[in-house]
């Protein structure tokens, strides 16, 4: 390979996309070539500019809270959230996870037809967690008159909370879902929508699963930012 050919590989090497043999050859050359070492720093910068040219898309407002909650920041959850169609989990919850899965699959197909990309993504995420062989199910609240349901836990994909038996929230109040660390304050995740007394939430936390002990739902005043649970409705242990 000529010097020019090595130089041409700097950007690809810096992006980690050289084929195995080519990468090894480049690395052998790089260690003794000042020109390529200097070229690599410039290649890194060019790569960064190419990446930064990606069309700017803003994430959901909730992402900020999700990200910062893991770093001990007051996680103020915006109250205004995009409207989302609600699943009727009242019936589905009484059935086995496999039936829930079927229901999710049907809803996903419906969302795809309606071109509802965000809802479709959420349903696929639920589907993925429910289908994973290592997902564990923990039930809580056996009394049918009180809040009860299941928590599906997957070490990497996340946690799904399905609950029913929730009374309609008082006027001006909403339900909020939380993860509860073994040490430290509960972390708000998202508004928990429970039409007809039942709902489902995918709980993402910046904290590793082994640092969490429970998930919970609280009642929060709709007009105030969520910082700590106002009225705890239930807490479901993860094990």
């Amino acid at each position, binding site marked *: 390979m000529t010097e020019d050919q090595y130089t041409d590989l700097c950007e690809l090497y810096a992006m980690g996309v050289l084929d195995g043999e080519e990468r090894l050859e480049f690395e052998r050359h790089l260690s003794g070539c000042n020109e390529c070492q200097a070229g690599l720093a410039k290649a890194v910068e060019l790569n960064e500019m190419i990446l*930064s040219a*990606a069309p700017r898309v803003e994430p959901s407002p909730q992402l*900020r809270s999700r990200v910062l909650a893991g770093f001990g920041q007051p996680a103020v959850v915006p109250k205004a959230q995009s409207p989302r169609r609600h699943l009727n989990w009242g019936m589905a919850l009484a059935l086995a996870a496999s039936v829930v899965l079927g229901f999710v699959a049907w809803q996903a197909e419906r969302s795809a037809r309606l071109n509802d990309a965000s809802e479709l993504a959420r349903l696929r995420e639920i589907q993925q967690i429910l289908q994973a062989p290592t997902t564990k199910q923990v039930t809580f609240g056996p009394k049918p008159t009180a809040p009860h349901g299941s928590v599906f836990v997957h070490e990497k994909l996340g946690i799904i909370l399905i609950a029913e038996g929730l009374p309609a929230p008082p006027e001006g109040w909403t339900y909020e879902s939380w993860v509860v660390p073994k040490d430290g304050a509960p972390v708000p995740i998202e508004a928990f929508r429970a039409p007809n007394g039942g709902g489902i939430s995918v709980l993402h936390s910046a904290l590793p699963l082994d640092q969490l002990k429970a998930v919970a739902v609280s009642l929060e005043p709709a007009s105030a930012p969520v910082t700590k649970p106002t009225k705890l409705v239930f807490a479901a242990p993860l094990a």
Partner: protein
Amino acid sequence: MSPNDRELAERLKQRDAGAMAELYDKYGGLLYSVILRAVTNPATAEDLVQETFLRIWNRIHTFDTEKGRLEGWIVTIARNRAIDYLRSLRSQPGESSATLEDLEHSGLFVTRETEADRLTRRKAVGDALERLSEEQRAVLELTHFQGLTQTEIAERMHKPLGTVKSLVRSALKLLRTSVVEAGGTAR
């Protein structure tokens, strides 16, 4: 690195969680955009943004606040999280993940010129990307946002490997030239 980024990086090193909020407000949208471009699924992109910020927090002690360029470092971390994810879907974890981690070494992200110069060059690169042919843009999309090697691109595009290499080389050459014309240095 801008004085603000240097200060931000210093505060992150001192485990100042407030600095994380500032970092998110400044770069969260950029990191999300880069990741979304790669994985295309908004929910997955948001998960990977979370992973990215955790990784920044856990590895900030390796960052050289005097010479390092914070933006370049975190954009690369974000991109690499997305590529790791895509490679896991293609059942290619392992060696490639380790390689990407090596390439996040902050010594590669050094500040050489002023922020104003960098912005000028960035605009030049953006303009040059517009001037690339469809095929040149496609191969760069696959290397930079999908993490494919040239061999993998050849298979995906049903083109000879030599053609793909030529497309990649010519695209990068045009972009390098645009940097030089905007006041950067050639190599």
